[in-house]
């Protein structure tokens, strides 16, 4: 399984804070998004983290990974 998390405005616009999907091998981040959100393309400036480190949409996932999607950060 892949654990997906959504944050901030993305979490609100999707109306959910997480998903859990099966992990067909191989599976990229973008494929995981599409599987979890078949009717919604990933927003243009979306950021991705795999296991809490920044990654790209074409990075490969393996079972048990935590993948997070979030908008540009605004801390500080």
């Amino acid at each position, binding site marked *: 399984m892949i654990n997906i*998390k959504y*944050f*901030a*405005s993305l979490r*609100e616009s999707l109306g959910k804070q997480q998903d859990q999907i099966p992990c067909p091998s191989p599976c990229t981040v973008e494929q995981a998004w599409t599987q979890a959100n078949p009717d919604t393309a990933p927003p243009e400036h979306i950021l991705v*983290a795999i296991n*809490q*480190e*920044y990654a790209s949409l074409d990075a490969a996932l393996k079972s048990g990974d935590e993948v*997070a999607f*979030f*908008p*540009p*950060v*605004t*801390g*500080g």
Partner: protein
Amino acid sequence: MDNVRLLDRAYNPWALLEAFQQARFADATDFGATAVFTGTMRDFNEGDDVAKMYLEHYPGMTLRYLQTLADTAKQRWSLNDCLIVHRYGDINPGETIVLTAAWSAHRGAAFDACRYLIEDLKHHAPFWKKETLANGDTRWVAENTPG
């Protein structure tokens, strides 16, 4: 001595700095320069009055990201130490959101490292601000201002 801290309530940045420096450098006299930045919540943004703010973050990734950032700065500038403190949750105008600090033998390194910490944090640390305006509307802050 934790040099990266996430806090869910208001803090006094100067008292925190004093305590950190006391504990970390009690008898040390080998740093000559300290540079500090604090970011405070304003009561206006993009032309609107802001009543309060909620700061969401990504528990787990946040601390991890900031610790790597602090370690990177210490190596890159040969710092005696550095410090990053960041709020999350509900925040009121006038409260300190973020604190970065760097201790070094030389002022150039202290300034450069302190500024690097806040710039990198603003661009990469997983925090998101949601403002509540004076009229009750809420909105996510779309992007940070340039440094």
